[in-house]
């Protein structure tokens, strides 16, 4: 950090005036302004920042999350906002207490770009986004059962033993990895061999005979 503390973005004052105690704190790090907000008001605050004249943070650069090494520290969902017109940036953080429910409101209705970004945070950190229309894993596969990889309590090599991981990898057959829903679109389900139909119906994704 530099000795002279740089001034935070003027948006912080405006946010405090509009939302009061829902603005938990703010900080400046490496020239970027960071505002911590209450999770129940996060969606309102982001919507306000997007539409209010003078703020106009119309571009959602990124959505991600941070899990700290200290297990007592809350997990933070991070929104990088940018105003394309004003050429200004703002970082909004929503701290989530890990003993409570990890849930925030989805901003899918404000920015369509939040779709995959929120799915990734869900996949990697287990944060659920209320109101997201299609919240499912994105980088890991549907049936991945080891947990959420970017959490600090997730070991680098995974939660399962190497033997179990190998067993599951050998048992998996990506060829059979259509969901029943996908097959039903094509009317192909009825033409499948009985054995495969039975196994698909039971939710199995085993070997394709």
């Amino acid at each position, binding site marked *: 950090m530099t000795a002279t503390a740089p001034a935070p973005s003027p948006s912080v004052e405006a946010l405090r005036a509009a939302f009061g105690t829902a603005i938990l704190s703010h900080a400046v790090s490496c020239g970027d302004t960071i505002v911590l907000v209450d999770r129940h008001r996060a969606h309102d605050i982001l919507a306000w920042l997007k539409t209010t004249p003078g703020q106009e943070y119309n571009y959602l650069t*990124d959505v991600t999350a941070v899990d*700290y090494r200290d297990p007592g520290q809350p997990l933070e969902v991070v929104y990088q906002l940018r105003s394309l017109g004003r050429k200004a940036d703002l970082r909004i953080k929503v701290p989530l207490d890990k003993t409570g429910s990890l849930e925030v409101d989805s901003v899918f209705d404000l920015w369509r770009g939040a779709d995959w970004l929120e799915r990734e945070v869900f996949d990697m950190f287990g944060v659920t986004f209320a109101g997201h229309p299609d919240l*499912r894993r994105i*980088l890991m596969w549907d049936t991945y059962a080891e947990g959420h990889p970017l959490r600090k309590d997730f070991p680098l090599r995974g939660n399962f033993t190497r033997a179990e991981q190998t067993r599951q990898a050998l048992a998996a057959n990506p060829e059979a990895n*259509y969901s029943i*829903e*996908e097959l039903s*679109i094509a009317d192909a389900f009825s033409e499948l061999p009985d054995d495969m139909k039975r196994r698909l119906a039971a939710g199995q994704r085993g070997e394709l005979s």
Partner: protein
Amino acid sequence: MSTRTVEMALATPGLDAQGRPNRLPLMAVSGTSDDEFGAEHMLVNIGPQHPATHGVLRLVLELEGETVIRCIPHIGYLHSGFEKLGEYRHYNQIIPLTDRTDYLSPMANNVCLALAAEKLMGIEITERCRVLRVIACEMSRIISHLVWLGTTGIDLGAFTPFLWSFYQRERIYNLQEAWTGARLTTSLTRVGGMMADVPEGWEAGLRDFCQTFPKTLDEVDTMFTRNSIWCGRTQNVGILSAEEAISYSLSGPMLRASGVDYDVRKDRPYLGYETYDFDVPVGEHGDIYDRYRVRLEEMYQSNRILEQALDRLGRLKGAPLNTSDHRAILPPKSQAMSDMEAMIHHFKQVMEGVPAPAGEAYMGVENPKGELGYYFVADGTAKPVRWRIRPPSFINLACLPKLCEGALLSDVIAINASVDIVMGEIDR
């Protein structure tokens, strides 16, 4: 007479008791079971092993006749957990990981990582280092766009420009190899400087490239820009308006083709880009053709920047390359072998790494595919608490279902090509 079996229970988002997501929730399409000819919907799977998906991307398409009703991308086949790995490495040790994300422009990724770490640690770099990094970024932009040009041409049935563009790309790869020793895994930068200076006489090779390369672009321009087949396949296909492009958080050529004038090099300048003379092409229709025009023009502009950077490099001959603070970057080997203090710095950096002060920094740069951002959260140790990659291809690809809706099956290939994805970066 539809025989669709499960139409109603398609949308089932949510979690089961173990906290895992339920079945793949497909949303039912309203009122489009059969068309007037009684044809049924067909499911087509493209990929993950298919050359036209430009990597291990899998698309599940629902077709009505030849029209795409719905497109469901499946990604993650190349997931390597780079962000997790980064949390277990020193800042300089992360640089080899960045080579492997967007592997079509490794040098630009290296530069972004070094810039992000320097922002976090408050390190000033030298002028010669800035100029060399600009050269690295613009060389990367040219090779990345050349791959895009060649493969998109092939996807649409034009083979010759592929050979031209890959020939030119090979020339840059040779320069890259002479500079870094590697063609793909360059690991060019270090926090506070560069891994190596350019070798003797290298500038002449790049100068020769800059002078002859635009001829190839002119030839491609002659071949494509007014070609009726090319125009027919690309104009008014895969359109995205400016508002939609902003809402989808697109960046790079995808955003600019839709008419939004946002280029990180101009709007949030880094490496002294504000002192270079170059233009940012902006499209107006937001279709594949405009994306082609934007990328083609960007290559001309990169060439302009390269020529200016080479002039500056000539003036900076003999100037220091790395920052003089040897707590941040390794001292020269000769010094480490003869000077006690330099040896201590060397030892501590190799064994313990360079600690970053507690804090966080987001650094966005204009990569060939769009805005690449590295976001570091540090807690005072030599390894980051969190290393987030803002992957431009991942975010650009998220609008693919929207682009493909209502398009023809053959257009899906063209649309997917126009997004310019690289799976190493999407899956990370």
